């Protein structure tokens, strides 16, 4: 039942140059969005705080590239990457972070609540594990409607402590629901290494339910994509749910203000992941090695994304705040 997908680091890539460029670009868009988000926080321009996705880009993009636009995702407090990967616009995301009127939630939600119905993003969620029920229910609905949609529930390994996740995984397996539970194991739940809060294995939790379970190198976007593509196709055909543990790493702290963190995470470890396991760098090297892109073409992609992000941010900074009268809007129909 439990299988490990080894990343296929050698040999020709089984993707087109076009797909390769899109994947690279999507990961880079997340990276640049988060750079801006961090700067906004450090410059005191963004209210509240935010949890950066930097370092985990291959998971969101590898997963969402396996989905159709109509497919569902639910996201987490560290959700910007999921939003971008599922097709969200950077300008409307920045506007939401800044609490501006054109933001995805009209400024009502902020960083931890971005939802994008048009692209099947049922929303980020600031309650750990809080969206597990929503994803499972969406999958149940898809099955009942015969729509062929699949739901992906993103969650961090910290959510394994929440009862809801186990309750809905049991239902999903019992009822053969088209939902994939994607555990982003970035090693730390808030300020604590996952080994101090997590007994047993992640995959073993699914195994106990008889659910398909895989683990994958979450820094390898193609490895993630390969596993998800198979599982999504199976789920679409009535093959039921699965759990995928993606081994990944968040470069920043738990949130943007978590700067002095050596008491729980050594700098050397951070450096190791940044230098040797950066998902964008690794993928770029593979694209070049396979002859699917040149270094110059990748640099041009990067520049284009930087330009897009700068314009998106300028739009958001100039956007109006919601009218005070909107505070009671959308409580009820």
């Amino acid at each position: 039942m439990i299988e490990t997908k080894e990343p296929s680091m050698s040999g020709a890539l089984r993707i087109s140059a076009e797909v390769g460029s899109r994947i690279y670009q999507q990961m880079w868009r997340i990276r640049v969005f988060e750079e801006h988000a961090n700067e906004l926080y450090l410059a005191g321009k963004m209210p509240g705080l935010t949890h950066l996705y930097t370092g985990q880009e291959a998971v969101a993009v590898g997963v969402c590239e396996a989905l159709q636009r109509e497919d569902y995702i639910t996201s987490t407090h560290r959700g910007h990457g999921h939003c971008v990967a599922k097709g969200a616009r950077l300008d409307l995301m920045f506007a939401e972070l800044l609490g501006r009127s054109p933001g995805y939630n009209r400024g009502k939600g902020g960083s931890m609540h971005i939802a994008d119905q048009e692209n099947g993003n049922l929303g980020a969620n600031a309650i750990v594990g809080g969206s597990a029920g929503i994803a499972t229910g969406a999958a149940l609905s898809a099955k009942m409607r015969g729509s062929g949609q699949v739901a992906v529930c993103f969650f961090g390994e910290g959510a394994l402590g929440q009862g809801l996740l186990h309750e809905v995984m049991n239902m999903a397996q019992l009822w053969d629901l088209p939902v994939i539970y994607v555990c982003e194991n970035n090693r730390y739940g808030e300020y604590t290494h996952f080994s101090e809060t997590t007994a047993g294995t992640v995959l073993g939790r699914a195994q106990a339910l008889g659910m398909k379970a895989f683990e994958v190198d979450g820094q390898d976007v193609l490895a993630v994509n390969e596993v998800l593509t198979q599982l999504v196709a199976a789920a679409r055909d009535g093959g039921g749910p699965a759990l995928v543990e993606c081994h990944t790493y968040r470069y920043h702290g738990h949130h943007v203000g978590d700067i002095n963190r050596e008491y729980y995470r050594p700098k050397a470890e951070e450096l190791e992941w940044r230098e040797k396991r950066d998902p964008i760098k690794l993928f770029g090297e593979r694209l070049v090695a396979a002859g699917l892109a040149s270094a110059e073409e990748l640099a041009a992609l990067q520049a284009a994304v930087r330009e897009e992000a700068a314009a998106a941010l300028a739009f958001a900074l100039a956007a109006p705040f919601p009218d005070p009268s909107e505070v009671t809007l959308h409580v009820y129909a």
Partner: protein
Amino acid sequence: MSALTMVQTIARTLDEEMARDDRVVVLGEDVGKRGGVFLATEKLFDKYGPDRVIDSPLSEAAIIGAAVGMAAHGLRPVAEIQFADYVYPGFDQLVSQVAKLRYRSGGQFTAPLVVRMPAGGGVKGGHHHSQSPEAHFVHTAGLKVVFPSTPADARGLLKSAIRDDDPVVFMEPKRLYRAVKEELPDDLDALVPIGKAAVRRVGDDVVLVSYGGSMAETTRAADALVEQGLSPHVIDLRSLAPWDEETVLEAVARVGRVVLVSEAPKSASVMSEVAATIAEELLDQLLAPPLRVSGFDTPYPYAQDREYLPGPARIMRAVQRVLDY
């Protein structure tokens, strides 16, 4: 003792109580090595070690559930729920197990535990980091609920809560965690009794009743009223279950006008209960209807918390209404 902020006071008080009674243990998410996300348990791990300062998984139901068992069997757990908004996964434990343990066992078992939780808005936390869920707990018989607004009250009430033989929900106004410093008494047994309000200012024109984070704006409104030559009487409830009916009713009976200020949503709020009690007991002596100034009956809004939180201007408009009535 030097002057401390509220959050420093809470850490100090936990230290004092753990030193006094080795049955007192702290548990919660990142309360140990990290010292809590707001540092309300700072340095306790170094001093008392992992057996008494327990870093838990992100499992609110398990934190509160385990605390019931610990409390029923010889310990005095102080559980931290990292944000009051996170209490809902543990809500069943609190309502169905903690609150009813004594009653349903015919007094054989008790759950002398404290559940601490930072609550309220004003920090741009969005829907899931800003709520004021105290009314749920006040509505639940078997729980005591306190919500201090000053460092000294936080200390005195936390000591009372830890020493109480019943479960106490200890709400902390996170936007006031570092708002003021206060010199605290040296007396390690300086308790603030649960159920007793504090009169912050004595006056004759209007009674302002508040608690927790909203005490900051209520105080500012009262200062502004004094500048206008008015004489407000200001009561800080501090305890919400039980609440100090005597102090409130005595003042309202004397003054005849009352404004009730809380950032919690208005419907079925703690202040609704206070208003209803005033109406039931004092209708003949009221010169104006009791007015509530509250948060809105909406989820907590991210961009618009300035509108949502009852500020001095809204409080003073309500005061004007009861004066003009």
